[in-house]
């Protein structure tokens, strides 16, 4: 039954892919229509969701001690010691991930039908999207490291394909390439980690590995392993997580990944793929918990990433860039949780984050769709009345990410902050960074929300419409396409110019996700956490948190809520909600920024990280490649190879003089040869 879960998207991928490749692509289809491929893809992933739900219910019915469903399809690799089965295993941890992937995935597929309605090649888009879901489900369901790695590479490939989906725009193609290359660096670490695991424990299966490690690592010595090896394994695998889950120093690809269509940003770069690093760390929690060093690195990187990305998000003007840096920051939170040993809190935040960040991205997509491909929040404002559903749902997401109780983000974020303070691996510094990040998160999200929906419009609606009409007239088939602008041919709902609310297929997912963002947090209420109980077979509950007592917890909870509220208030002061004051307050905000010109410039350029990487890594490598090309390849290797050719040609030219073409000369040669042979036979041998 488990194999059905990834099978459905695979079938959807094959149907859409074959249909597109065989019938649409060769004819250069101009008006393909997103409905048919969209419905096929949505049904495929929805079917997976239903199966995943059955699996979840089945698990729930079992006793809490043996909640595992396993299915072995066939033997994949057998070589010496190495046995890898194509096997899937559903347990409490990945059942949650599966539900989130298929559930949120279904909503985003549904949303894409509306969003990609005017695209030239929706068949290709949905085929990639299904392929991504297949790979992601392989990643979470795989029973061993190689299958996880299969999915890990698969999602990387789909991410690349979808970021560069509008590849005729060179910037977008470059963004895809960057994501792929940066991820490869991480994957290298992951592979090394995997090799080291096999070398040490001679197995790659998760359950076998857990048994091999033993409770608390008491069997380590039997495998000739020590703490150093475990630390090395954990750190190498964490390099993979840095790439896939966008942590410092490999986070740079995620903001650029916003070049892809917005549903892709919601599905891949917010809800699912980027959380696979957290999945792996919590899957291997028995290893990570053994090594305080590795945990400390994970926590520090997470906390610092959370803080660092939040500072950049403060000043971004592109609506998707703000959300992208916010995603990096939230992923940092999740690793902070894992790093202090609170894997449950990390998984909890994965789930709530999937809800509210997918919601925010889809809301942003709806805004971009409604504003006719405008992404600059400085040119928005006052969309509250124009796009009521988007406004209400976005507001739910905004409150959730800010951490206002009782929205989903509050519970998970508060759990992380509390754990980072109270856990044996936590510290005040980690908590401080987390809390500061929470304040900044509230600030930049409120800024985004206010600039987009509140205040008064900072765009000329007539101009938007007329500009849009121009696009309709002049749109080349493969021209400059922003968002869904591939050869606009607008239907009835788009007939009127100006800002408009999105179609129903886009609003419905927003509404469902908004509900999830509001109530999603109750599954992990402190002290009566259903989630903690559910995950207990996979992630043992650790007792450190209780030691500090209840009152401290309430105090910290109060502090984090107060921080969020302060962030919101400050943002509202500068980016005022009321139309009358909005102009003046924007000026005030500008004035505040101008007071620190250096900091201002640093933030505007995202701390110059891209520039530094360009100078330190990209340029030297390019120079090295150029040098190798010109000095080694052309100068040495080419010369050597061409030399062979020249020598052969010269030899041939020289020897062909013998070939006169005259029969008599040949006959003479023959006679001489015969004489020589006979002479040798008669006299030479004797």
């Amino acid at each position: 039954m488990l194999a059905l879960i990834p099978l459905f998207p695979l079938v959807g991928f094959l149907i859409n892919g074959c249909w597109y490749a065989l019938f649409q692509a060769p004819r250069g289809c101009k008006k393909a229509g997103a409905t048919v491929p969209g419905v096929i893809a949505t049904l495929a992933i929805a079917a997976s969701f239903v199966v995943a739900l059955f699996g979840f219910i089945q698990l729930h019915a079992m006793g809490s001690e043996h909640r595992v469903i396993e299915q072995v399809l066939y033997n994949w690799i057998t070589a010496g010691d190495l046995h890898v089965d194509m096997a899937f295993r559903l347990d409490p941890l990945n059942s949650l991930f599966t539900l989130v992937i298929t559930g949120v995935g279904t909503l985003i597929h549904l949303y894409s039908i509306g969003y990609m309605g005017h695209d030239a090649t929706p068949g290709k888009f949905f085929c990639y999207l299904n392929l991504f879901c297949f790979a992601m489900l392989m990643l979470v369901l795989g029973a061993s490291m190689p299958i996880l790695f299969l999915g890990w590479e698969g999602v990387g490939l789909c991410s690349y394909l979808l970021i560069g989906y509008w590849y005729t725009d060179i910037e977008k193609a470059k963004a895809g390439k960057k994501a792929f290359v940066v991820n490869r660096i991480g994957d290298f670490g992951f592979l090394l980690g995997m090799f080291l695991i096999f070398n040490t424990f001679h197995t790659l299966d998760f359950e076998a590995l857990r048994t091999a490690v033993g409770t608390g690592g008491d069997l380590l010595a039997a495998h000739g392993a020590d703490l150093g090896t475990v630390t090395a394994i954990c750190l190498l695998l964490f390099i993979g997580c840095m790439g896939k889950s966008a942590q410092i120093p490999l986070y740079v690809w995620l903001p650029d990944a916003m070049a892809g269509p917005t549903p892709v940003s919601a599905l891949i770069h917010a809800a699912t793929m980027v959380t696979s690093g957290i999945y792996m760390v919590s899957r291997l929690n028995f290893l990570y918990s053994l090594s305080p060093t590795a945990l400390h690195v994970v926590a520090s990187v997470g906390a610092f990433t959370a803080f660092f990305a939040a500072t950049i998000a403060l000043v971004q003007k592109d609506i998707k860039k703000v959300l992208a840096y916010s995603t990096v920051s939230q992923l940092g939170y999740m690793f902070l949780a894992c790093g202090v040993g609170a894997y449950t809190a990390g998984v909890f935040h994965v789930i709530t984050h999937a809800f509210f960040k997918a919601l925010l991205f889809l809301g942003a997509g709806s805004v971009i769709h409604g504003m006719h491909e405008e992404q600059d929040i400085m040119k928005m404002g006052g969309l509250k009345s124009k796009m009521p559903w988007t406004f209400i749902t976005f507001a739910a997401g905004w409150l959730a990410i800010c951490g206002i109780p009782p929205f989903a983000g509050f519970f998970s974020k508060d759990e992380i902050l509390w754990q980072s303070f109270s856990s044996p691996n936590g510290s005040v510094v980690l908590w401080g960074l987390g809390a500061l990040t929470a304040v900044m998160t509230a600030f930049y999200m409120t800024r985004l929300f206010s600039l987009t929906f509140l205040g008064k419009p900072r765009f000329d609606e007539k101009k938007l419409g007329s500009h849009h009409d121009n696009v309709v007239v002049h749109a080349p088939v493969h021209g400059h396409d922003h968002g869904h602008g591939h050869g606009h041919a607008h239907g009835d709902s788009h007939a009127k110019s100006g800002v408009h609310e999105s179609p129903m297929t886009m609003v419905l997912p927003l509404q469902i996700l908004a509900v999830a963002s509001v109530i999603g947090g109750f599954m992990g209420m402190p002290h009566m956490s259903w989630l903690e109980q559910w995950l207990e077979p996979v992630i043992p509950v650790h007792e450190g948190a209780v030691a500090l007592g209840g009152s401290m917890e309430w105090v910290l909870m109060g502090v984090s809520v107060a921080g969020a509220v302060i962030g919101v208030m400050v943002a509202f002061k500068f980016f005022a909600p009321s139309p009358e004051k909005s102009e003046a307050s924007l000026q005030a905000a500008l004035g505040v920024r101008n007071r620190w010109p250096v900091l201002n410039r640093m933030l505007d350029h995202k701390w110059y990280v891209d520039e530094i990487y360009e100078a330190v890594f990209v340029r030297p490598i390019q120079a090295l490649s150029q040098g190798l090309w010109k000095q080694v390849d052309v100068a040495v290797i080419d010369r050597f190879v061409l030399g062979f050719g020249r020598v052969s040609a010269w030899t041939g030219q020289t020897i062909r003089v013998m070939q006169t073409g005259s029969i008599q000369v040949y006959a003479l040669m023959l006679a001489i040869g015969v004489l020589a042979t006979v002479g040798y036979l008669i006299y030479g041998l004797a």
Partner: protein
Amino acid sequence: MPQQIDTWVVLAFCSAIFMIGLAGVLIRRNILVILMSVELMLNAVNLTFVTFSKALHHMGGQMSVFFIITVAAAESAVGLGLVIAMFRTLRSVDTDEIQLLRE
């Protein structure tokens, strides 16, 4: 009873004919003459076979001669056919002018 000719005399005679044939093949330019020279060489060899057969009292040599005469007849037929075809296309039987494979 007539006097028996010495074996070496016959063999020397055969060698002489063979060398004449070889010289003809190497020197003459007319392809018909070359073919005739080849026949000369073949017959020199035949004569050698017969001589050794007589001297050594072994019938193998005479058997070989029959084979060679048969094959030589076929070879001449093919050779002459080629010469005619060559003359029809190139209007010449001079080997200096038929060096088509050179370039």
